[in-house]
C-alpha cells in the first residue's frame, strides 16, 4: 500500500485558474520523495488538497489507503505538514504552539509536553520554549514549524520549501535531521527550489509543470537522462583557446577558466588527456550547475 496515492487530481480555483490538470502519482512507504516544479506549477495546491486547505475539483487522494473523501480525519492523523509560509501565532510561546498542535490531534497535554520537549530539543529550540514566536529568527521559525509538524508523530511528513531563506549551515543541519527521520521509517515528501537539496535527499523525484506531472522516476534514472553536463576548469596559466574534441564544446570564459560541455558519449578522462596534450594544466574543476538543475530546466523549458 502506498503512503500516498493521488489519482487524476484536478483543481480549478474560483478565479478560473486551473492549477492541476489530472495529476496522478504514488509515493511508496519509507520513500524520500521530491516534488519539483517552477513557481505556480501546482506543488502547493497538491499539498493543500492532501492537507484539506484546498478543496479539490476532481480526483482521489488516499493516505496509507485511507480515502480523504471517506475519512479525512483518519487520513489527517497520518500526515504532518510543514508549510512554505509561517502560519503560527507570533504572540504565542514556542512550546505552547507545539503543544496546541498536539492537542488538535487529540493528544492530551501531559503527553503533548513530552512530545514537544523531544522535538524542540532535537531541533535546538528547547532553550527558546518560553519565548514568543515573534522573537525567533527566521531559521528558528522554520525549525519550529518542523517540530509542530512532527509533534503527533505522523507516518507521512510533507515539507513545502522547508529550507527557504535558511542559511547554509542550518540547512545542512536540517538535511541531516530529515535524513534521520526518513531512515527511521518516516515517509517524506519534499518540495524545494534548491535542486541540490532534492538531489542530495530524495530517492524518488517527480517534476510538475503547468499542473501536470512531466516526470516521475527514481533519482538515478532521472539523472541518467541528463545527456550533457558542463564543467568548469580553472587552469594554472592563461589559455587563449582549446582545440576541438568530439562530443565536447569548449569555451574560454576568461584567461584561466575553461567551460567544457560534454555529451554522454564523452568521458572526463579524454578531456583531461586532451587538455594535457595541449600543455594546459588544470588546477581545479567543478560542475557549472547542479546536475538535477540542468535536467529540470531542460524538461520544464521543453514543456
Amino acid at each position: 500500500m502506498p503512503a500516498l496515492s493521488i489519482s487524476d487530481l484536478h483543481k480549478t480555483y474560483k478565479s478560473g485558474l486551473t492549477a492541476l490538470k489530472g495529476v496522478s502519482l504514488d509515493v511508496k512507504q519509507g520513500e524520500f520523495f521530491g516534488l519539483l516544479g517552477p513557481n505556480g506549477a501546482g506543488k502547493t495546491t497538491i499539498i493543500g488538497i492532501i492537507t484539506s486547505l484546498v478543496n479539490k475539483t476532481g480526483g482521489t487522494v488516499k493516505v496509507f489507503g485511507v480515502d480523504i473523501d471517506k475519512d479525512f480525519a483518519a487520513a489527517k492523523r497520518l500526515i504532518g505538514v510543514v508549510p512554505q509560509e509561517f502560519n503560527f501565532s507570533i504572540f504565542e510561546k514556542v512550546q505552547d504552539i507545539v503543544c496546541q498542535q498536539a492537542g488538535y490531534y487529540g493528544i492530551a497535554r501531559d503527553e503533548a509536553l513530552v512530545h514537544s520537549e523531544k522535538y524542540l530539543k532535537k531541533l535546538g529550540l528547547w532553550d527558546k520554549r518560553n519565548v514568543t514566536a515573534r522573537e525567533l529568527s527566521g531559521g528558528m521559525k522554520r525549525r519550529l514549524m518542523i517540530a509542530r509538524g512532527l509533534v503527533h508523530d505522523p507516518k507521512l511528513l510533507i515539507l513545502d520549501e522547508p529550507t527557504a531563506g535558511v542559511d547554509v549551515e542550518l540547512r545542512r543541519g536540517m538535511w541531516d535531521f530529515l535524513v534521520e527521520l526518513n531512515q527511521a521509517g518516516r515517509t517524506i515528501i519534499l518540495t524545494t527550489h534548491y535542486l541540490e537539496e532534492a538531489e542530495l535527499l530524495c530517492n524518488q523525484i517527480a517534476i510538475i509543470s503547468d499542473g501536470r506531472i512531466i516526470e516521475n522516476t527514481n533519482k538515478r534514472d532521472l539523472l541518467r537522462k541528463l545527456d550533457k553536463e558542463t564543467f568548469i576548469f580553472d587552469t594554472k596559466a592563461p589559455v587563449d583557446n582549446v582545440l576541438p574534441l568530439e562530443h565536447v564544446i569548449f569555451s574560454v570564459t576568461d584567461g584561466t577558466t575553461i567551460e567544457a560541455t560534454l555529451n554522454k558519449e564523452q568521458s572526463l578522462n579524454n578531456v583531461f588527456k586532451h587538455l594535457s596534450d595541449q600543455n594546459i594544466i588544470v588546477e581545479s574543476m567543478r560542475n557549472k550547475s547542479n546536475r538535477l538543475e540542468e535536467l529540470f530546466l531542460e524538461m520544464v523549458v521543453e514543456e
Partner: protein
Amino acid sequence: MNRNLICFTTIARRETTRIFRIWLQTLVPPAITMTLYFIIFGSFIGSQLRDIKGYDYMSFIAPGLIMMAIITNSYTNTVSSFFSTKFQRNIEELLVSPTPNSVIILGYISGGMVRGMSVGFLVSLVSLFFVRLPLHNIFYILLFAFLTSFVFSLAGMINGIFAKKFDDISIIPTFVITPLTYLGGVFYSISMLPDFWQTVSKANPIIYMVDGFRYGFLGSSDINILTGVSMLIFFAVALFSVNLYLLKKGIGVRS
C-alpha cells in the same frame, strides 16, 4: 480523555489564555465604558426620570447594561480572535488537523462566552456601587446570560469567517449590533412604546434577551419568558448550523 474533548479544551484554553493575557484590551475597557453608562444615564440623567414598572431608572437599566456588555464582548471576542487566526494563517493549524468543525466552533465560542460572561460579571460588580439590584430568579439570570453569550459568540464567528480585512470585523457591530442593542429595551421598556413600535420591536432578537435577563432581577417582563428562551434556543441552533455549513464548505477558510 476523548480525542474531541482534548481538541475542544486545547482551543478553549488557548482562547481563554488570550483573553486574560491581553486583559487590558479585553476586560478593562468594557468595564470602564459601562461605569460611564451607570454614571451618566443612571446617576445624572436617571435621577431626573420617573420610575419604570415601579423600579427607579437605575435599577431598570442595570440589567440591560450588563446584558449589553455580554452581547458586545461575546461577539467582539469571537470575531476578532477568529479573524486574527485567519490573518496570521494559524487557522491552518486547526484545518490540517482532524478536529471536527463542530469542535472548532465550540472552541472558539467558548472564548467569546468566557469574555462575555467575565465582562458581564465585572459590570455586575460595578453596578453594586450604584444600585442594589434585587435577585428575583438567579436561574433565569444565568440562563439568559449563557444563551445570549452563546448566540452572539456564534454570530461573531460567522462575521469572522466572512471577514477578509480588519474593517469587516467592525461593520456589523457598528451598523447592526449597536443599533439593535440600543433599540433592544436596554434604556426603556417596550411597553412605553405605541402598539405599532412594540410590534416592530419584537422583531429585534435583543429585546428577548434583555427582557428575560431583566426578569431574572426584577421579576417583571414585557414578553413571556418561555417565548424568550425558545427564541434564544432557536437562534442558537440556527447560527450553529450556519457556522457548521460555512466551515464544511470551507467558505472564508479554504481555497
